[in-house]
């Protein structure tokens, strides 16, 4: 399966990555093909058109897509992640039947709307409201940095049904594109991952019927927290993929490029750098696989997922930075891929919880494990 996806990613995605970076657009054509192959419903069961594979299989395949283009892997991880996982777990039979097959096939892309302009990691502080009206709710507020904004057909929206109840007042709603009162901002200007279009999303007294609430009232915060671990493992896998692409490019370049009469890989300054890059990449992959493997066996992986995400994202920055250095001046040139990989990698230290948040989580878990 890994080889089949590698083959696809190398032939169909990698060749368009540089163009998508320069002329950003949501890559619908390749996403639909990913849907045809089963890459957009990897963990959904077969009865909903998914591939029904486990977390370990998922991260192995996500790495393959990320090694070809980070933007594709971001869109892949968002739509495979929360939208499908939460609908599967909390959805009514009607919600599952309506949404899951469309998401798994790539006919729909899913988006997750939690972050707001003033709060990212502090999810209980959201101010988007869902006020009860007859037959449903009125949504009011603005979300920020929504990957797939304006492109996705299904938006999972976290909003306060009880504004004064803190985390317990958050509920989740399914909003389909085209709903009256749904507005999108222009694509955000970003350092990297340009084709993973992100916009603000505004709900202007948008009516959602009762049946479009996912789970119970007040369940939204728990829903987004229980699924964080899986999301972090996914970002770790993405970071591993980006780093792998950079290391492969650096290995090839150091073999071809000559200086002072020999390939630069013969110089210890280069070979030691490559050795460090490769070692961190392998360690990052193993932490990622461990977290995925434990999760598949039903263990709570809060610490392991955060460790994988923290280490892999920092390894990706280290490895892509090292690749730029190995390429020398060409590493700074847009004619070569490594400057793009360097930019694409940086956000893995930010989204799904910054590195600082991961350290907070790991630190807290160290004591929890000992019952302190």
């Amino acid at each position, binding site marked *: *399966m890994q080889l*089949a996806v590698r083959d696809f990613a190398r032939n169909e995605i990698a060749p368009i990555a540089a163009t998508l970076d320069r002329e950003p657009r949501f890559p619908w054509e390749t996403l639909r093909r990913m849907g045809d192959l*089963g890459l957009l419903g990897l963990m959904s069961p077969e009865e909903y058109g998914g591939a029904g*594979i486990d977390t370990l299989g998922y991260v192995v395949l996500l790495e393959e897509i990320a090694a070809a283009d980070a933007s594709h892997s971001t869109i892949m991880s968002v739509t495979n992640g929360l939208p499908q996982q939460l609908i599967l777990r909390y959805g009514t039979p009607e919600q599952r039947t309506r949404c899951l097959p469309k998401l798994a096939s790539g006919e729909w892309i899913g988006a997750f709307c939690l972050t707001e302009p003033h709060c990212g990691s502090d999810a209980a502080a959201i101010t988007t409201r869902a006020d009860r009206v007859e037959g449903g709710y009125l949504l009011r507020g603005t979300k920020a940095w929504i990957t797939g904004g304006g492109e996705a057909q299904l938006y999972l929206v976290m909003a306060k049904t009880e504004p004064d109840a803190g985390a317990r007042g958050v509920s989740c709603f399914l909003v389909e594109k085209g709903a009256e009162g749904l507005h999108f901002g222009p694509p955000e200007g970003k350092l990297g991952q340009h084709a993973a279009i992100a916009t603000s999303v505004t709900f202007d007294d948008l009516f959602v019927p009762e049946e479009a609430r996912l789970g119970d009232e007040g369940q939204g915060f728990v829903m987004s927290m229980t699924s964080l671990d899986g999301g972090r493992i996914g970002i770790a896998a993405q970071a591993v993929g980006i780093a792998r692409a950079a290391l492969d490019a650096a290995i090839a370049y150091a073999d071809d490029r000559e200086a002072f009469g020999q390939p630069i890989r013969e110089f210890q300054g280069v070979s030691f750098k490559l050795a460090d890059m490769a070692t961190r990449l392998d360690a990052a992959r193993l932490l990622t696989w461990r977290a995925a493997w434990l999760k598949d066996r039903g263990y709570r992986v809060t610490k392991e997922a955060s460790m994988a995400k923290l280490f892999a994202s920092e390894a990706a920055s280290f490895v892509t930075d090292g690749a730029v250095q190995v390429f020398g001046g060409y590493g700074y040139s847009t004619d070569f891929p490594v400057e793009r990989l360097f930019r694409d990698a940086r956000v893995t230290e930010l989204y799904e919880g910054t590195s600082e948040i991961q350290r907070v989580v790991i630190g807290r878990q160290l004591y929890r494990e000992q019952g302190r």
Partner: protein
Amino acid sequence: MKIVTILKQVPDAEARVRSKDGTLDLSGATFVIDGMDEYGVEEALRIREGGADAEIVALAFGPKRTAEAIRTALAMGVDRAVHVLGDEPLDALATARVLAPLVRDEGADLVFVGGKQADWDSAALGPALAEALGWPHSDWTTSLTLGDGALEVIHDVDDGSETLTLPLPAVVTTQQGLNEPRYPTLPNIMKAKRKTLDTRALDEVAAAAGVSATSTTELRSAVIESRARRNVMIEGDAASAAAELVRRLRDEAKVL
């Protein structure tokens, strides 16, 4: 109807292959299903998707690792497979002798063979198989329409193309342009693990059919040509260097 697609596993042409002491060093090489065999698998699948009630069987000769190439074909949609297991390579004639009785036993109506095998660049297996079976054959086929008990094909010839009608059963070898092979989908890759892969030893297959599994071609030696680059640097400013480059390409290399 029944369609048999012949498969061969070859070194991946897109991966780096090392040469050592004048021969290929295949240790550490990645192996894939031959690209031209994939055209045959794809065409068989399209015939079925076009409404034909067809069972598609892959048939391959090769060492144990050949099973990986067979799994690829199963994942693309082939129904089941037969693997004739033999560690030493056979030439096209011997391979055809061994595979022909199996094709006949299957009751095949149509056989696809890759137009050319990427490892030795030989285009002999398809014609040899047709000869061993005594069936009509279309080589370098770029288009194919299945009629009632017959097949209309367009195939490349030196001066262009020909349209032929072949009675079934027949052997068709593929040419680039026949189709664009699909990637296996993940659900189909998983289903492929449960499909039947019948592995049989070469000696037993040959003995049962009463044919010789020995190559008649004897390989005396093989040399890989390698050429050193000349690494010529043209001196001077851009305009005069360009003029000199054009002169060399026209007068010396004679490519302009």
